[in-house]
């Protein structure tokens, strides 16, 4: 019985116990009537048998005639599963109405999927599409898709973008923008020293070298020149290019107050939620936000237990800012000042290698004057027409 059910799970059968009376005659009568029986197993004073669901209603008359008691042991099959729904028309109507509703609303955006761009870029893309009018719950038209595509193409972080909409799913395909090539200027400009120091190495790729290793240079001295007369006093021109590594000693200073005022969040926070879909927008609790303070707006697709719904939840967050006094202890102030000095060093000389450093600090009335003298190796060659950072 069980094996048969496994082979044919769609077949609906009834397992019956026929006991007492002339049960053999009952079996013979079933055969005469053409009722197919199977798995007939003799038991004490009767048999157990399996009969198709369509035939078991005819057994009672035959059993009564032979004084045999019938008892249903088990019902199995699709028919008996579906019979549970018999009379419960609300379930069927509800399922049909749900299917019809899904079919009618398949032109709405239920979910948005992105491919080809990073997670951070997806957030920006979602905001761009929202500004173009494309978000969950919007009724899609070809014009709207075209508008969204144009908005994405104007975004500089993607090289191309395409929007495909199919049965409630908006597929956003995009490729990140390639790095733009920077073309070097070919003007003949001298490379000069950006700081005083002693030259350690010169690697000139183009131009005419004016200083060599071991020479001391002052700030503004020409290191690699663009013009040089030849033996006939004819000026030759080149585009200087190269690297001049020098040992430089420079002092960076910073003043760090122990108490200073900043504009920081006060802790006062308000939020407002708006549900948007094809019927419009609904805000359950409307709030008036003050003019001052920071305001942030987040748009999130709505989903229930992982199932996307055609709606967008807009959260408007208002954060109050106020002037607050920041108090620093001595160690923190020192770290802040050191960080500022090192930041200035590496901004001015990228890739500098520090050899020695001497720190000096003086305190006067809640103010730290910090200076660090750094001896470092760095490339000091700069184009003469480029301003120092």
């Amino acid at each position, binding site marked *: 019985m069980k094996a048969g059910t496994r082979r044919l799970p769609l077949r609906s059968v009834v397992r019956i116990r026929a006991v007492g009376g002339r049960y053999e005659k009952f079996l*013979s009568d079933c*055969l005469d009537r053409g009722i197919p029986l*199977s*798995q*007939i197993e003799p038991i004490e004073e009767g*048999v157990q048998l399996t009969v198709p669901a369509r035939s078991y209603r005819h057994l009672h008359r035959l059993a009564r005639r032979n004084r045999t008691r019938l008892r249903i042991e088990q019902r199995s099959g699709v028919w008996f599963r579906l019979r549970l729904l018999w009379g419960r028309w609300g379930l069927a109507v509800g399922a049909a109405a749900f299917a019809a509703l899904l079919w009618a609303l398949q032109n709405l955006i239920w979910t948005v999927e992105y491919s080809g761009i990073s997670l951070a870029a997806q957030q920006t893309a979602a905001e761009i599409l929202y500004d173009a009018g494309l978000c969950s719950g919007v009724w899609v038209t070809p014009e709207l898709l075209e508008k969204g595509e144009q908005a994405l193409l104007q975004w500089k972080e993607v090289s191309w973008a395409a929007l495909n909409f199919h049965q409630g799913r908006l597929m956003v395909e995009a490729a990140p923008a390639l790095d733009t090539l920077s073309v070097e200027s070919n003007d003949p400009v001298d490379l000069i020293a950006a700081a005083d120091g002693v030259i350690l190495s010169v690697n000139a790729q183009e131009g005419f070298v004016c200083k060599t290793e071991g020479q001391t240079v002052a700030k503004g001295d020409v290191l690699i020149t663009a013009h040089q007369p030849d033996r006939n006093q004819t000026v030759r021109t080149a585009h200087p290019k190269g690297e001049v590594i020098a040992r430089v000693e420079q002092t960076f200073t910073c003043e760090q107050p122990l108490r200073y005022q900043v504009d920081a969040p006060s802790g006062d926070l308000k939020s407002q939620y708006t549900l948007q879909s094809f019927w419009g927008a609904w805000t359950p609790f409307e709030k008036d936000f003050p003019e001052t303070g920071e305001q942030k707006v987040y748009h999130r697709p709505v989903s229930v237990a992982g199932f996307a719904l055609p709606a967008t939840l807009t959260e408007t967050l208002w954060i109050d800012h106020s002037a607050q006094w920041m108090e620093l202890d001595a160690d923190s102030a020192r770290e802040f000042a050191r960080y500022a000095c090192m930041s200035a060093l590496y901004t001015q000389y990228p890739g500098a290698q520090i050899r020695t450093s001497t720190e000096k600090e003086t305190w006067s009335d809640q103010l730290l004057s910090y200076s660090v003298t750094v001896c470092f190796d760095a490339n000091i060659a700069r184009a003469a027409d480029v301003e120092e950072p």
Partner: protein
Amino acid sequence: MSKKDRSRQISNHVPTGFYLRPRLHFTFPGELEVENCKGILLCTSQMIRLDLGRRAVLVRGDELRLLSAQKRLLRICGQIFSIEFSSGEEVSVP
């Protein structure tokens, strides 16, 4: 000779009611097929007695059961020890 005449000639060689006679097919390891069975006279796990019209057949064995029972066709399986034939009136079951 047409195809119709040929089939008629073949059917003339088959006696009347040939396909309505009771038949027994036994296959090892122990399945008995009974065609044109008129009824079930006894059904226990040790013996099954079938009515074949003028004759009756008694199947003795252990754990006997009917795999399927359709009109004119029965399949018996189990450990069959013996098959006895008798006229329907004379056979007595111990």
